[in-house]
């Protein structure tokens, strides 16, 4: 399978802090890759770099062989990279439906077709019953679904999911894992940041571990979780429990 996303030797610095250092990673079409690592490892920065919200100081990022460096988030979204935010950002003043329509309008510029498309996505993520509620009334779990639905409505080839499981209870997590699998089966490639290791183990085919802005390990989840470097990176970190769970 062809490489969909290639990150090569990418670095980003904020003042004195080296957030991402010479990071390289490749995501192949059809994969589900999890990006894990302790807090401050540079995962969210890496996402922002890939989705165009930040620009790398050095290095190259390619999507379908095309360089994405210097492109804006909306251009990248049009190319097929969609993201969710770690802290969900629904359009609070709009209804659930309208939120998703905004995403769907990217590929379907006419409101009626976009609405039909959004309807289908809401059905898929299980929010159809709440379509006319304002987004501000949703629970956290539903807001995460909405965040996912909106991104999905842009019909991406690559979906970047930033901690969509955080704060959900086990049943909700289970459902979301199912949903992500189903979306992946439809051909959407996924790169996800996740702290909930049970979910990581369950859905990802490959895991990339970041620490201090660098990649320290990579491979199938079962192997990576026993890697001594990974255990060391997490040691003393508040997520030790999660990493072992």
């Amino acid at each position, binding site marked *: 399978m062809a490489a969909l996303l290639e990150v090569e030797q990418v670095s980003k610095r904020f003042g004195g802090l080296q957030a991402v250092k010479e990071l390289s990673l490749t995501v192949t079409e059809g994969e589900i890759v999890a990006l894990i690592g302790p807090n401050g490892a540079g995962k969210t920065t890496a996402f922002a770099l890939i*989705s165009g*919200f930040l620009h790398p100081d050095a290095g190259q990022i390619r999507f379908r062989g095309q360089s994405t460096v210097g492109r*804006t*988030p*909306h*251009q990248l*979204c*049009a190319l097929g990279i*969609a*993201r969710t*935010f770690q802290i969900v*950002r*629904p*359009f*609070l*003043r*709009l209804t659930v439906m*309208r939120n998703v*329509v*905004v*995403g769907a*309008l*990217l590929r379907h*510029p*006419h*409101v009626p077709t*976009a609405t039909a498309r959004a309807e289908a996505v809401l059905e898929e993520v299980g929010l159809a019953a709440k379509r006319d509620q304002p987004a501000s009334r949703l629970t956290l779990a539903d807001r995460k679904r909405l965040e996912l639905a*909106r*991104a999905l*409505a*842009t019909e991406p080839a690559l979906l970047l999911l930033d901690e969509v499981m955080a704060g959900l209870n086990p049943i909700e997590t289970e459902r979301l894992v199912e949903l992500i699998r189903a979306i992946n089966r439809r051909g959407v490639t996924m790169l996800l940041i996740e702290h909930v290791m049970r979910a990581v183990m369950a859905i990802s085919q490959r895991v990339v571990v970041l620490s201090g802005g660098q990649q320290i390990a990579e491979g199938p989840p079962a192997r990576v979780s026993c890697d001594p470097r990974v255990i060391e990176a997490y040691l003393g970190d508040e997520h030790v429990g999660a990493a072992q769970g």
Partner: protein
Amino acid sequence: MRWAGLVLVALLLALPAILSSYAITIFIVIFFYAFLGQAWNIVGGYAGQLSIGHAAFVGVGAYTAAILARDTGLTPWVGMFVGGACAAALGTVIGYLGFRFGLRGFYFALLTVAFAEIARIVTANLEATGGALGLYITFTGDPRQFQFSSNLPHYYIALALMLVATGVAGGIERRRLGAYLAAIRDDEAASEALGVNSFRYKMIAIVISAFLTGMGGTFYAFYFLSLQPNTVFGVPFSVEIALRAIVGGSGTLLGPILGSFLLTPLAEFSRAYFATGGWTGVHLIAYGLLLIVVVLFLPQGVYPYLRRLVGEGQRS
């Protein structure tokens, strides 16, 4: 909803038959401010980019049409569109400066004030515009000069302007542009992540808004027949425009109209009352207090509040 609107329009069309001439002039000003508020609403309400300099667009449109009519004999019926285009050009410049680099929202607000001020200073210093004394249009009563011997035609023109602007706003609301503007107003970064080129859509919003407002300039010039830089470019005028939409409910289709029906008569009467008493500043103090009260107690405006009230009334 639709038939209610049609009934209302029919009512307004027939209304002059029973109105006194003075009442008609009040309605003209109500429609005109509703029109300006609606034009403002496109960028200030739907796009959520607060402009406190819309007077600049009225002024540019008014002076353009008036000078063209005076120096080249161009009829204001065409000058109206030239004025609109000039205002749109000014809007493009302000939008380009204010929306680039994802600058924070208040940059735009500051820029609109600054540009209106500059327009005022330049106009007051140019000979062609009549300088600080202003520009006066002689009354001819010639319809080709946008002038009429009775105020009835102006009543219908103002009504038409209000309906056109409302039609434009309604069209935006129903289309992609409207959905995108609402998203940008809520969360610009999140909209960008969904493929929305926020710079582009904000630019479209300000250009449309400035064009319509600039067209209104022609009405201003040839209805009031006098243009003074301090008035037509002044911040109080910009505030009056924005206030109609904000009090009524910014970002809603009926907000600016409701706002104008509430505020314009109030403003007209208080202006007349206080100005004759020598209390020139009092109605502006009232505006200031009104702004403060609206921000603190009714930030979404009257229309959404009324709609909620009605909604609750129906449920209980």
